């Protein structure tokens, strides 16, 4: 293999893929990138056996080839080269040589045949939507995914596709986030898949806000997302996601409406003096008034008194303040609504003018 490529071009291709390469590896080849030339493109592949990322860079292909090189080293070298530099990459049997100006690097290669590439996802159903749409529903729910939970099916995001709607749901068992976008999907029957946490995080790194198209291809146990320059293939989590619709409360009779930014900031301040471990905040509601209270084992206390729209009668309820902050932070509207029933029942948070994202937060007995 021999090729010529601009440093910036190569770096952005490597950057898109490097995230999936784990720093610690038991299988040496997994710390390598697979580099492959095809016409005037270099295809860079990284994998952790669960997720595979593939990106492309436009190159001058002098001699085609297929090699693997140490991922992080190549990435760090590229990043360290001056902006706009020209790079020449050439491989011999077990070495890859990188030259740029007066710099020369020789990297050890491993056999490309041994690289565990997942390849193309064969016949599955496809769905095309805009970058911005997918990014939005991911961003609004991603924070509620569980992390290393024993209930492995919570360590990911539910993607539900029906005829005219794409919905994401994430929960860690204590709160739930749901967001949806309306569109003709061409799916006749509802389809549910659970996408691993890491795949969502990687996708969020490469998704942009614009109108470019993303194609999702769903096949048995796999999802492939094609984003023009990047392609992500991931295994799906095989498990049953909780029946989330049962968890979303019917509208509660106690309805609070308030300025989102105002409440968010007040919660952010009171959170400072909440118990570090439990993060409990007490909400006291009575006519047109919301009082936030926290205290910690050092006997420090915070209290915020806010004017809100509420006439549901006196209610006192405790929450993990982080859960409320996450939900309010994911919304973008000016005003938000929170529906409550009683101190033992969940709260439902959504934007005043837009019910496409919903947040269910379970209370905490303090």
């Amino acid at each position, binding site marked *: 293999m021999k090729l010529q490529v601009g440093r910036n071009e190569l770096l952005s291709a490597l950057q898109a893929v490097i995230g999936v390469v784990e720093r610690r590896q038991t299988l040496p080849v997994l710390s390598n990138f697979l580099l492959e030339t095809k016409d005037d493109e270099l295809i860079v592949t990284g994998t952790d056996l669960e997720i595979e990322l593939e990106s492309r860079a436009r190159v001058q292909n002098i001699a085609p080839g297929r090699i693997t090189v140490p991922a992080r080293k190549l990435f760090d070298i590229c990043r360290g080269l001056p902006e706009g530099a020209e790079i020449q990459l050439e491989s011999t049997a077990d070495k890859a040589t990188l030259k740029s100006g007066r710099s020369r690097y020789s990297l050890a290669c491993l056999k490309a045949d041994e690289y565990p590439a997942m390849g193309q996802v064969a016949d599955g159903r496809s769905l095309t939507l805009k970058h911005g749409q997918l990014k939005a529903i991911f961003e609004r729910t991603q924070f509620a995914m*569980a*992390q*290393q*939970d*024993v209930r492995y099916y919570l360590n990911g995001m539910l993607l539900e596709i029906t005829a005219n709607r794409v919905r994401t749901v994430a*929960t*860690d*068992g*204590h*709160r*739930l986030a749901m967001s949806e976008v309306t569109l003709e999907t061409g799916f006749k029957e509802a389809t549910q898949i659970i996408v691993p946490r890491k795949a969502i995080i990687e996708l969020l790194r490469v998704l942009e806000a614009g109108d470019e198209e993303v194609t999702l291809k769903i096949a048995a146990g796999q999802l492939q997302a094609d984003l023009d320059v990047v392609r992500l293939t991931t295994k799906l989590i095989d498990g049953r996601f*909780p*029946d989330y619709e049962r*968890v979303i409360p019917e509208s509660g009779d106690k309805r609070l409406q308030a300025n989102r930014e105002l409440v968010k900031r007040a919660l952010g301040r009171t959170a400072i003096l909440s*118990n570090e*471990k*439990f*993060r*409990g905040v007490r909400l006291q509601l009575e006519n047109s008034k919301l009082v936030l209270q926290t205290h910690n*084992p050092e006997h420090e206390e915070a209290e915020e008194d806010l004017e809100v729209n509420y006439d549901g009668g006196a209610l006192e309820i*405790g929450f*993990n303040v982080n859960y409320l902050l996450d939900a309010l932070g994911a919304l973008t509207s000016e005003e938000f609504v929170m529906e409550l029933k009683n101190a*033992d029942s*969940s709260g439902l948070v959504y934007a005043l003018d837009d019910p496409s994202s919903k947040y*269910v937060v*379970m*209370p*905490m*007995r*303090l």
Partner: protein
Amino acid sequence: MAIRILPDQLINQIKAGEVVERPSAVVKELVENSLDAGATRVEIEVEQGGLNLIRIRDNGSGIPREELPVALQRHATSKIQNMDDLERVGSLGFRGEALPSILSVSRLTLTSRVADASHGWQVSGAGAYENEEPKPAAHAVGTTVEACDLFYNTPARRKFMKAESTEFRHISQFINRIALCRFDAGFTLKHNQRRTLDLAPADSEPEREARVAQICGDDFVRNAIRIDEQRMGLSLQGWVGLPSFARTQADLQYLYVNGRAVRDKLLGHALRRAFADAMHSTHYPAFVLYLELDPVGVDVNVHPQKTEVRFRESARVHDFLFGAVHQLLRRQRPEPEQHHHAHFAESATNMSVQQPMRYATPSYSSPSYSSSGYSSQNFSARESASSVESLWAASNATTPSLQESAAEYPLGHALAQLHGVYILAQNNTGLILVDAHAAHERVLYEQFKQQLTHGGIPSQALLVPEQISLDEEAADALESRHEELRRYGLELDRAGPASIIVRAVPPLLAGQDIATLLRELSSDEDRRTNTTHLGEVLDAQHRIMADMACKAAIKANRRLTLPEMDGLLRDMERTELSGQCNHGRPTWVQVDMAELDRLFLRGR
């Protein structure tokens, strides 16, 4: 058969069955007589485990010639005269039945001389006293009792005797037991002409410590804390082994009530509870403890061998003993100089540069209730109470300075993590090794407990209640503890005969495997015995938290950053009992520079 009064000798033999069932009991009675007579030297000589010969010689006050025959008679004593005396008895003996009992089952010779007599006198008998006149005998002031051929006339009993070595072990254990409490007397013990023990009277503090070390071992002394507590007419003194010095047998437990060694269920329970937090239930604490109270508050006349007592206010005594030891253990904070020394080298002894028992703050200055100097507990009243206070004050004063100077953190600063298990840290004296899981477990446990007492543990409701199937008994057990569990933030309901539904969990356990946790909690149930004392209710709760803490603590192979490790070290310094995990294993050890130097043969 007609009803008839039994002959005297038979009565005595029946009594002997209770009082002197084996050679060590004979030794006990005779040594106690010597101590009651104010002896400062007691020589014990036995042959063939005591079955052939038991000879006790003392330098006590002796018995006048005319009282010698009386001493061998049933119900003859010089120690009490009326009910009042019995109620406040301070001597070890008071029933006047030991000598006649021993006589009834052996060939006994009693030789004695009082101070103003020119020579001694002797009486003897085999099985019974034949009312012979005392014969003159050469003897220094004091008494010698010789009992030969024990149980020669009760073959059934003699058959029950164990091997010679076993019988001797019992004797030697008794001597240890009494010597630990009677520092005022010296003891020698000979078996088959061989001397096995030689203890001089221990009049000074170092001498007493040396005696404790000789009997309980140097290790005990190194790992023990002195205790001295007085409250409401009760006093507790002695040595308490650190929980990390736990034993697999109850072989280092010496408890005395008013100078009398006792085995008492109530007191045993109080001590077990005091250690429960810090020690695995299969281990036994080590202690040498002297409990003193007004004799009127304790009835010693309840057991033939006087090894049990009855307290008038048993709950108060229980709580005092529990509280004193419990508090003492909880006051301990990391003090690398003191304990937790790693023993690398073959010669563990020369490694401890520290003064043994440097904690030695208490003095034995409490008023002793024992009358007429019968108890040894009034030793060393000269260590004044004020010196005690200043020592404590000094040690307390060091605590705030921990925060001031980073260099003086007792557990130092983390350097690295070893194989995902141990934290290596450096402090002023050298290297500290911490078992991260064990330490974190203890820190969490103490946190759980604190939160429980300060306003409770919050409970995070679950979005989807988790149904857990277990066997019916386990479900029963959990359901019955439903309220208790709620206080730790776990809310559950019975969902069916063999399933439980979890509705809320403590936030600290979010994302943990609640199902496994509950199964383990409920399966342990059968191990938990029902104890009547109320404190047990709280202990049961602590056990749940200990279990929770163990399961929630960082597992091996979790990579820790330096700030995380430092955080844990600081937490440990702040945490009570942080020196042991909940199972009593040490959480950290100190390796001094000197010890490291020795490893590398430096400075030799």
